[in-house]
Protein backbone atom coordinates (compact mmCIF):
# COMPACT_ATOMS: atom_id res chain seq x y z
CA UNK A 1 0.00 0.00 0.00
CA UNK A 2 1.51 3.27 -1.12
CA UNK A 3 1.00 6.21 1.24
CA UNK A 4 -0.96 9.07 -0.25
CA UNK A 5 1.79 11.52 0.58
CA UNK A 6 4.10 9.89 -1.94
CA UNK A 7 1.67 10.55 -4.77
CA UNK A 8 1.09 14.07 -3.51
CA UNK A 9 4.75 14.89 -3.28
CA UNK A 10 5.28 13.46 -6.73
CA UNK A 11 2.50 15.66 -8.09
CA UNK A 12 4.07 18.65 -6.37
CA UNK A 13 7.39 17.88 -7.98
CA UNK A 14 5.81 17.49 -11.38
CA UNK A 15 3.94 20.75 -10.90
CA UNK A 16 7.10 22.55 -9.95
CA UNK A 17 8.86 21.19 -12.99
CA UNK A 18 5.93 22.30 -15.08
CA UNK A 19 6.18 25.83 -13.72
CA UNK A 20 9.90 25.79 -14.31
CA UNK A 21 9.41 24.77 -17.91
CA UNK A 22 6.63 27.34 -18.23
CA UNK A 23 9.07 30.06 -17.31
CA UNK A 24 12.32 28.89 -18.77
CA UNK A 25 11.37 27.41 -22.11
CA UNK A 26 11.24 29.75 -25.04
CA UNK A 27 9.32 27.72 -27.56
CA UNK A 28 5.62 28.51 -27.38
CA UNK A 29 4.65 24.92 -28.03
CA UNK A 30 6.90 23.66 -25.27
CA UNK A 31 5.47 26.23 -22.89
CA UNK A 32 2.05 25.00 -23.81
CA UNK A 33 3.14 21.46 -23.09
CA UNK A 34 4.40 22.53 -19.69
CA UNK A 35 0.90 23.75 -18.95
CA UNK A 36 -0.36 20.28 -19.80
CA UNK A 37 2.27 18.89 -17.46
CA UNK A 38 0.96 21.04 -14.62
CA UNK A 39 -2.56 19.87 -15.32
CA UNK A 40 -1.39 16.29 -15.16
CA UNK A 41 0.27 16.90 -11.84
CA UNK A 42 -2.98 18.28 -10.48
CA UNK A 43 -4.84 15.27 -11.85
CA UNK A 44 -2.50 12.95 -10.03
CA UNK A 45 -3.22 14.75 -6.78
CA UNK A 46 -6.93 14.48 -7.49
CA UNK A 47 -6.84 10.77 -8.07
CA UNK A 48 -4.59 10.16 -5.11
CA UNK A 49 -6.94 11.97 -2.79
CA UNK A 50 -9.99 10.30 -4.25
CA UNK A 51 -8.40 6.96 -3.51
CA UNK A 52 -7.33 8.03 -0.05
CA UNK A 53 -10.77 9.32 0.83
CA UNK A 54 -12.53 6.46 -0.86
CA UNK A 55 -14.63 8.85 -2.89
CA UNK A 56 -14.90 9.06 -6.67
CA UNK A 57 -15.38 12.81 -6.95
CA UNK A 58 -11.69 13.27 -7.53
CA UNK A 59 -11.73 11.00 -10.54
CA UNK A 60 -14.77 12.77 -11.95
CA UNK A 61 -12.93 16.04 -11.64
CA UNK A 62 -9.98 14.54 -13.41
CA UNK A 63 -12.28 13.75 -16.28
CA UNK A 64 -13.46 17.35 -16.35
CA UNK A 65 -9.89 18.56 -16.28
CA UNK A 66 -9.05 16.35 -19.21
CA UNK A 67 -11.99 17.66 -21.19
CA UNK A 68 -11.02 21.23 -20.50
CA UNK A 69 -7.44 20.45 -21.41
CA UNK A 70 -8.59 19.07 -24.73
CA UNK A 71 -10.57 22.21 -25.51
CA UNK A 72 -7.69 24.36 -24.42
CA UNK A 73 -5.27 22.43 -26.62
CA UNK A 74 -7.53 22.85 -29.64
CA UNK A 75 -7.85 26.61 -29.26
CA UNK A 76 -4.31 27.17 -28.05
CA UNK A 77 -2.73 25.32 -30.91
CA UNK A 78 -4.90 27.27 -33.33
CA UNK A 79 -3.55 30.46 -31.81
CA UNK A 80 -0.01 29.15 -31.98
CA UNK A 81 -0.43 28.38 -35.66
CA UNK A 82 -1.63 31.92 -36.24
CA UNK A 83 1.30 33.37 -34.35
CA UNK A 84 3.74 31.27 -36.31
CA UNK A 85 2.08 32.38 -39.53
CA UNK A 86 2.14 36.07 -38.73
CA UNK A 87 5.46 36.44 -36.91
CA UNK A 88 7.50 33.65 -38.53
CA UNK A 89 8.81 32.58 -35.14
CA UNK A 90 7.90 30.33 -32.24
CA UNK A 91 10.13 32.08 -29.73
CA UNK A 92 8.01 33.88 -27.21
CA UNK A 93 10.67 36.47 -26.65
CA UNK A 94 10.30 37.52 -30.25
CA UNK A 95 6.56 37.91 -29.76
CA UNK A 96 6.70 41.04 -27.64
CA UNK A 97 4.34 43.57 -29.21
CA UNK A 98 2.25 43.43 -26.05
CA UNK A 99 3.67 46.58 -24.46
CA UNK A 100 3.39 50.34 -24.63
Amino acid sequence: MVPTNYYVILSAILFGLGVFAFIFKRNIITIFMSIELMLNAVNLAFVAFSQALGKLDGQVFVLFVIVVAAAEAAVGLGIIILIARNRQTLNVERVNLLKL
Partner: protein
Amino acid sequence: MTAQLAVFFVLAGLAAIGAVSLILQKHPIHSALSLIVVMIALAGLYLLLGAEFVAAVQIIVYGGAIMVLFVFVIMLLNAGIEEHTSISKMAGAPGLLLVVALAGFVAATIARSTESIQATSQTGELASTLGISNMLFKDFVYPFELTSFLILVAVLGATVLAQREKS
Protein backbone atom coordinates in the same frame (compact mmCIF):
# COMPACT_ATOMS: atom_id res chain seq x y z
CA MET B 1 2.96 -4.68 -0.47
CA THR B 2 6.52 -4.00 -1.52
CA ALA B 3 5.60 -4.91 -5.10
CA GLN B 4 3.21 -1.97 -5.28
CA LEU B 5 5.82 0.33 -3.78
CA ALA B 6 8.38 -0.87 -6.30
CA VAL B 7 5.99 -0.27 -9.16
CA PHE B 8 5.17 3.14 -7.76
CA PHE B 9 8.78 4.15 -7.56
CA VAL B 10 9.48 2.92 -11.06
CA LEU B 11 6.57 4.84 -12.50
CA ALA B 12 7.23 7.92 -10.39
CA GLY B 13 10.87 7.93 -11.47
CA LEU B 14 9.73 7.56 -15.05
CA ALA B 15 7.38 10.51 -14.70
CA ALA B 16 9.97 12.69 -13.01
CA ILE B 17 12.62 11.84 -15.57
CA GLY B 18 10.16 12.55 -18.35
CA ALA B 19 9.33 15.94 -16.86
CA VAL B 20 12.98 16.80 -16.45
CA SER B 21 13.77 15.79 -19.97
CA LEU B 22 10.83 17.86 -21.17
CA ILE B 23 12.78 20.78 -19.80
CA LEU B 24 16.19 19.72 -20.94
CA GLN B 25 15.30 18.75 -24.50
CA LYS B 26 16.08 21.39 -27.05
CA HIS B 27 13.77 20.18 -29.77
CA PRO B 28 10.06 20.50 -29.18
CA ILE B 29 9.31 17.05 -30.53
CA HIS B 30 11.63 15.49 -27.99
CA SER B 31 9.89 17.50 -25.30
CA ALA B 32 6.60 16.20 -26.59
CA LEU B 33 7.84 12.63 -26.43
CA SER B 34 9.04 13.17 -22.88
CA LEU B 35 5.66 14.52 -21.98
CA ILE B 36 4.04 11.46 -23.48
CA VAL B 37 6.25 9.33 -21.29
CA VAL B 38 5.11 11.31 -18.26
CA MET B 39 1.52 10.81 -19.21
CA ILE B 40 1.85 7.10 -19.68
CA ALA B 41 3.64 6.80 -16.38
CA LEU B 42 0.83 8.72 -14.76
CA ALA B 43 -1.66 6.36 -16.36
CA GLY B 44 0.23 3.52 -14.77
CA LEU B 45 0.00 5.29 -11.43
CA TYR B 46 -3.71 5.69 -11.90
CA LEU B 47 -3.97 1.97 -12.47
CA LEU B 48 -2.00 1.48 -9.31
CA LEU B 49 -4.51 3.68 -7.56
CA GLY B 50 -7.33 1.58 -8.92
CA ALA B 51 -8.62 4.33 -11.18
CA GLU B 52 -8.51 2.23 -14.32
CA PHE B 53 -11.11 4.21 -16.21
CA VAL B 54 -9.23 7.41 -15.64
CA ALA B 55 -6.07 5.68 -16.68
CA ALA B 56 -7.61 4.57 -19.94
CA VAL B 57 -9.06 7.99 -20.61
CA GLN B 58 -5.74 9.56 -19.76
CA ILE B 59 -4.01 7.56 -22.42
CA ILE B 60 -6.77 7.81 -24.99
CA VAL B 61 -7.37 11.53 -24.70
CA TYR B 62 -4.03 12.88 -23.59
CA GLY B 63 -1.81 10.40 -25.34
CA GLY B 64 -3.99 9.63 -28.31
CA ALA B 65 -5.49 13.02 -29.07
CA ILE B 66 -3.93 15.99 -27.37
CA MET B 67 -0.31 15.04 -27.70
CA VAL B 68 -0.90 13.86 -31.23
CA LEU B 69 -2.20 17.35 -31.89
CA PHE B 70 0.96 18.79 -30.45
CA VAL B 71 3.16 16.58 -32.54
CA PHE B 72 1.04 17.33 -35.55
CA VAL B 73 1.41 21.06 -35.03
CA ILE B 74 5.13 20.76 -34.45
CA MET B 75 5.47 18.89 -37.69
CA LEU B 76 3.16 21.30 -39.48
CA LEU B 77 5.10 24.37 -38.36
CA ASN B 78 8.34 22.46 -38.84
CA ALA B 79 9.59 23.83 -35.54
CA GLY B 80 13.34 23.59 -35.15
CA ILE B 81 15.69 23.67 -32.18
CA GLU B 82 14.56 26.46 -29.88
CA GLU B 83 16.89 29.44 -30.15
CA HIS B 84 18.45 30.51 -26.86
CA THR B 85 17.56 34.16 -26.30
CA SER B 86 17.39 35.79 -22.89
CA ILE B 87 15.62 39.05 -23.52
CA SER B 88 13.48 38.78 -20.42
CA LYS B 89 15.36 39.73 -17.25
CA MET B 90 12.63 38.51 -14.96
CA ALA B 91 12.90 34.95 -16.23
CA GLY B 92 16.41 34.61 -14.87
CA ALA B 93 17.61 33.97 -11.33
CA PRO B 94 14.55 35.57 -9.71
CA GLY B 95 12.31 33.27 -11.70
CA LEU B 96 14.28 30.27 -10.51
CA LEU B 97 13.95 31.32 -6.87
CA LEU B 98 10.25 31.86 -7.30
CA VAL B 99 9.77 28.45 -8.86
CA VAL B 100 11.60 26.72 -6.06
CA ALA B 101 9.61 28.62 -3.48
CA LEU B 102 6.37 27.80 -5.24
CA ALA B 103 7.17 24.10 -5.47
CA GLY B 104 8.08 24.12 -1.81
CA PHE B 105 4.82 25.78 -0.92
CA VAL B 106 2.78 23.40 -3.01
CA ALA B 107 4.49 20.39 -1.48
CA ALA B 108 4.20 21.75 2.05
CA THR B 109 0.58 22.77 1.69
CA ILE B 110 -0.50 19.49 0.16
CA ALA B 111 1.55 17.48 2.61
CA ARG B 112 -0.03 19.33 5.50
CA SER B 113 -3.46 18.66 4.06
CA THR B 114 -2.64 14.98 3.69
CA GLU B 115 -1.79 14.68 7.36
CA SER B 116 -5.50 14.65 8.00
CA ILE B 117 -5.98 11.81 5.56
CA GLN B 118 -4.80 8.49 6.93
CA ALA B 119 -4.16 6.29 3.93
CA THR B 120 -7.27 4.12 4.07
CA SER B 121 -6.67 0.65 2.73
CA GLN B 122 -8.11 1.21 -0.70
CA THR B 123 -7.74 -1.97 -2.72
CA GLY B 124 -8.65 -0.07 -5.85
CA GLU B 125 -12.11 -1.57 -6.09
CA LEU B 126 -12.54 -2.44 -9.72
CA ALA B 127 -16.16 -1.38 -10.22
CA SER B 128 -15.13 2.26 -10.12
CA THR B 129 -16.22 2.82 -13.72
CA LEU B 130 -19.84 2.28 -12.78
CA GLY B 131 -19.50 4.63 -9.81
CA ILE B 132 -17.89 7.29 -11.96
CA SER B 133 -20.62 7.06 -14.55
CA ASN B 134 -23.29 7.30 -11.86
CA MET B 135 -21.64 10.34 -10.37
CA LEU B 136 -20.99 11.92 -13.74
CA PHE B 137 -24.55 11.60 -14.99
CA LYS B 138 -26.36 12.14 -11.70
CA ASP B 139 -24.49 14.49 -9.38
CA PHE B 140 -22.35 16.26 -11.96
CA VAL B 141 -24.77 16.30 -14.86
CA TYR B 142 -24.89 20.07 -15.23
CA PRO B 143 -21.13 20.56 -15.25
CA PHE B 144 -21.04 17.71 -17.72
CA GLU B 145 -23.45 19.50 -20.03
CA LEU B 146 -21.46 22.68 -19.61
CA THR B 147 -18.30 20.92 -20.71
CA SER B 148 -20.13 19.85 -23.85
CA PHE B 149 -20.83 23.52 -24.54
CA LEU B 150 -17.21 24.30 -23.83
CA ILE B 151 -16.13 21.73 -26.38
CA LEU B 152 -18.51 23.16 -28.94
CA VAL B 153 -17.13 26.65 -28.40
CA ALA B 154 -13.59 25.34 -28.61
CA VAL B 155 -14.34 23.63 -31.90
CA LEU B 156 -15.79 26.80 -33.36
CA GLY B 157 -12.89 28.86 -32.07
CA ALA B 158 -10.29 26.50 -33.47
CA THR B 159 -12.05 26.48 -36.83
CA VAL B 160 -12.20 30.24 -36.99
CA LEU B 161 -8.59 30.59 -35.94
CA ALA B 162 -7.20 28.01 -38.29
CA GLN B 163 -8.90 29.07 -41.53
CA ARG B 164 -6.98 31.57 -43.62
CA GLU B 165 -9.02 34.69 -44.21
CA LYS B 166 -9.97 35.04 -47.86
CA SER B 167 -8.08 38.10 -49.06
